[in-house]
């Protein structure tokens, strides 16, 4: 191997290795690479001085800026709350009627409420609040609990239904068939009767519907009322209207009576601030009514 041999074409030194007559030029790393390497190193030196970086034996270098991401985000959230305070303080102060009478305030409520609803409520109730099987349609305004007043809505959002909150609203449709309270033929009769209340049994067997009425009077009136219009203090739905939480076909209604139902609304007090709950209450209360 010959050191300091020069390539005749370029005049540059070679590595001294030769493979079947092919030699390799000894090309040094371009200077620009060293330049950027140096620049990057200087950049990191500056960062090491400004930000928390190096672990020491008992602690770590805190940096000259004293940056702490946990404090940064706390300040950002606080600032955001302050910048919204012009209208959120009014929400906190005013009553529901006053808020709804204030168009400027309502614009903010609609905007923020839509985001809050999308992040928290839409998974079950749908983006348009129209619900789905097992999850109530809020736009239909066929309330299961309370009179649909903002106060009643706020209570439902706050404590939930069958939730982990100590003050939770509690309701349960019993499993009349599964738990052996009613034989199958009586369940079928009461299903026919309940469906007939909404004129869903046009060709129904009048005798069976009459039998169902007897079963209903003996078993269902305690919660759903003698007129089957439901009781909103126990969350028992109105069976005469066009809203069906679990479907209106005979099979679905049969399943409801046979296996029972127990919906669940989470304990939102554990997740949302009182202000958020108030905004959501106004948002839901002022949803445009969309019957099913």
């Amino acid at each position, binding site marked *: 191997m010959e050191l300091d041999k020069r390539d005749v074409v370029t005049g540059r030194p070679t590595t001294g290795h030769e493979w079947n007559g092919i030699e390799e030029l000894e090309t040094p790393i371009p200077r620009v690479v060293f330049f950027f390497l140096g620049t990057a190193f200087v950049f990191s030196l500056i960062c090491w001085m400004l930000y928390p970086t190096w*672990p020491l034996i008992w602690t770590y270098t805190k940096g000259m800026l004293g940056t702490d991401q946990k404090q940064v985000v706390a300040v950002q959230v606080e600032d955001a709350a302050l910048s919204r305070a012009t209208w959120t303080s009014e929400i906190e102060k005013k009553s529901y009627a006053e808020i709804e009478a204030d168009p400027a305030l309502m614009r903010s409520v609609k905007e923020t409420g839509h985001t809050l609803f999308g992040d928290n409520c839409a998974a079950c109730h749908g983006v348009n609040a129209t619900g789905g099987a097992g999850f109530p349609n809020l736009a239909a305004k066929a309330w299961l609990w309370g009179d649909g007043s903002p106060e009643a809505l706020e209570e439902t959002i706050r404590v939930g239904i069958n939730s982990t909150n100590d003050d939770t609203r509690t309701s349960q449709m019993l499993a009349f068939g599964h738990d052996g309270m009613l034989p199958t033929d009586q369940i079928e009769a009461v299903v026919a009767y309940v469906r007939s209340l909404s004129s869903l049994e046009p060709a129904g067997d009048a005798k069976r519907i009459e039998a169902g009425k007897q079963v209903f009077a003996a078993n269902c009136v305690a919660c759903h009322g003698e007129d089957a219009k439901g009781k909103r203090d126990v969350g028992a739905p109105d069976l005469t209207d066009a809203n069906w939480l679990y479907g209106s076909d005979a099979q679905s209604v049969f399943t409801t009576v046979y296996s029972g139902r127990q919906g*669940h*609304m989470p304990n939102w007090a554990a997740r949302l601030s009182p202000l958020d709950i108030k905004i959501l209450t106004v948002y839901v209360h002022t949803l445009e009514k969309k019957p099913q």
Partner: protein
Amino acid sequence: MPEFFHRKVERNAIGFVLAIVGVASIGGFVEIAPLFTIHETVEEAPDMRLYTPLELAGRNIYIREGCYACHSQMIRTLRDEVERYGPYSLAVESKYDHPMLWGSKRTGPDLARVGGKYSDVWQVRHLMNPRDVVPQSIMPRYGWLAKNDLRIDDLGEHLAAQRAVGVPYTQAMIDNATQDAYGQASPDSNYASGVSERYGKATNVRAFDGDPSRVTEMDALVAYLQILGHLTDAAYKQPAAQAEAQE
């Protein structure tokens, strides 16, 4: 830089090896050194509870099905994340996660605090067919979870493995792992009381998939999802402590 510097280095074999070791160890040092002061960066959470055997099984299913590929479990210290998902994640909250499932990609939402946000029924319906409840969802269906019985006979070994890497499971927990997994999903059975005895009263004991007679993979995964973010409430206290530190 002298033009033939590398020539000298490359011709000195021992020196070259030492140089390689020296440079490579910088990378190692940068990764290992922060562990020397880990007690400074990981918060204290004396109230932290352990994953029950059923939740641990659910966690294994979460890993098996690759949920972490689309869902992170790490709320960062950014305002939009804190406002959407809740308090930012603390290091201590992953103390018993072996391996951690922070993830780095969010095709779906972050799940660090999804526990208790939706009902069991919603979770089950969503896993069976996400489009049933969220029409615009692109998440795949996981219907087989409801059909597959959960394997619970070997859960004691899973707990023992976790104990070997530092999770403080007691011998009673390991011995009763199979019964506890069954009990947590069957609230009316004789095994249910042992779960709250060993893992705390706040443990969710329910028929997660709606059927108390069987323990399915659905039970396990939903039990796991419903506890996410609720092993300790340290994160909920943290912002208050931060605010005080500022003043």
